């Protein structure tokens, strides 16, 4: 199920968007007729969506519209009432994926050292110890991580812990990576730093990434596409493309293109909020 080689796909070293030029017309994830209700209200009613391959999609929308619910259903954390979610036509259990929780404190295992936390998914797949270590080392070198991995999670800062979580998700060489508001428990300084880390991960691996965000600036800054959701039952209010070259930097935030896309997203968002 898991390939023996970490990060086997070609690695983009330039600023070009990963997957560019590759034949990626077919969507990576297809969602059809997704229906989900809690108690007496429908969050999703026959919801359809395609997630393109090798792109970073941010999900943004009004409070309680079901951003996290969507990502959790795609990643199989909560069951769907009806509908189908396929990855290249395959169900979730046939693919490798990574998931990063918002609450890194409760998502990491404090009884394991950072390195053993990262190795845990490989251990579940019975990858031998020597290879596990080698793969962690490769990932560390690849991402340029400078953390003492022999430490326990509680000995690391919040940002470092979340970085360990992201590495734990990446160690299986996932076909798709899910992040549920991964930086919202961090202070602003650390959030900025972690955005760059995530961008680097994405540029280096080109993994299809789905990011739930509650910060519009962050959502646009990191995204190839921003998925704007409406209030329940959620529909696609807009699927905005933002194609500024990577790596993006602080200067990107004041470029006219960024400002325009962000303003447009805010417009759609406000419209949806007022409807509610």
């Amino acid at each position: 199920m898991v390939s023996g080689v970490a990060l086997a796909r070609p690695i983009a070293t330039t600023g070009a968007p990963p997957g560019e030029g590759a034949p990626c017309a077919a969507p990576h994830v297809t969602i059809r007729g997704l229906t989900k209700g809690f108690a007496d209200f429908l969050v999703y009613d026959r919801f359809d969506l395609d997630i393109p391959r090798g792109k970073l999609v941010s999900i943004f929308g009004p409070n309680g519209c079901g951003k996290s619910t969507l990502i959790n259903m795609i990643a199989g954390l909560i069951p769907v009432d009806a509908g189908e979610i396929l990855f290249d036509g395959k169900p979730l259990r046939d693919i490798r994926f990574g998931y990063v929780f918002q609450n890194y404190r409760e998502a990491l295992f404090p009884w394991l050292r950072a390195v053993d936390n990262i190795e845990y998914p490989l251990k579940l797949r019975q990858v031998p110890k020597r290879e596990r270590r080698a793969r962690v080392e490769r990932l560390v070198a690849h991402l340029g991580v400078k953390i003492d991995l022999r430490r326990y999670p509680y000995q690391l800062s919040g940002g470092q812990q979340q970085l360990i979580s992201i590495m734990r998700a990446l160690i299986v060489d996932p076909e798709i990576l899910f992040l549920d508001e991964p930086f919202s428990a961090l202070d602003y300084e650390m959030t900025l730093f972690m955005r760059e880390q995530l961008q680097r991960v994405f540029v280096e691996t080109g993994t299809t990434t789905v990011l739930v965000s509650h910060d519009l600036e962050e959502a646009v800054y990191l995204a190839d596409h921003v998925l704007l959701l409406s209030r329940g039952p959620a529909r696609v209010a807009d699927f905005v493309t933002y194609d500024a070259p990577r790596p993006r930097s602080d200067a990107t935030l004041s470029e006219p293109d960024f400002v325009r896309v962000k303003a447009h997203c805010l417009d759609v968002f406000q419209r949806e909020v007022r409807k509610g």
Partner: protein
Amino acid sequence: MKWLEPLLPAIGVVVLIMLWYLAVWLRVVDPVLLPPPTDTFRALWKGMNGGQLGADFLKTVERTTLATLIAAALAIPIGILLGASEKLYRSLEFVIDFFRSTPASAMFPLFLVVFGVGDKTKISVAAFGAFLVILFNVAYGVMNARKTRLLAAKVMGASKLRVLTDVTLMESLPQTFVGLRNGVSLALVIVVVAEMFIGSSDGLGQRVFEAQQLFAMPDMYAAIFAAGALGYGLNLLFLLVERRFVHWSGK
């Protein structure tokens, strides 16, 4: 003044002993009832070094350890089982809470009838008391395992059994140690009381009781101190083991 800080815990002890000397010197209490500290510590020293007190001390240690081991061996697996199934726990919660609130000493006559006058009764009553305390804590530890952590293991592809062994059990460890510490303290209390009152010929409880009957006050105080040291030592031992094996507790 910084160098004084490690000495702070000793101040209470020194003050207590000084007050004790003062009370003896001023004859506040009848000297027969309150012997000077020197006599008491001499009795403690002689008793623990080859005297009867040392033998009784070991006997109490043996009973308390056995009771705690039996209690833990039963309570930990059952606690995990109960904690893993919330419905099962809720259906037994009242029974557990009821007997946990029942003074174990009230059970002596019942256990006497069942096990007779001997070591079995003392150990089994103590084990019974400790069992419920440990059980309750283990079950709570399992039930209160962080949901995110369980979900994280599941999302990484861990089977139900794997989630239980890799996450739930580790998550319940801090609470299990709370149970073990409370359990061993309770076991000691019950063992000492049992040694006093249910036909015992040895043990710290019996030593205290006998010394009192013979008006051998230094011996009685010595036995009380020995029991105190034992209780404190057991608690400390569990704390050290906990800190070693559950290093993440409270962090």
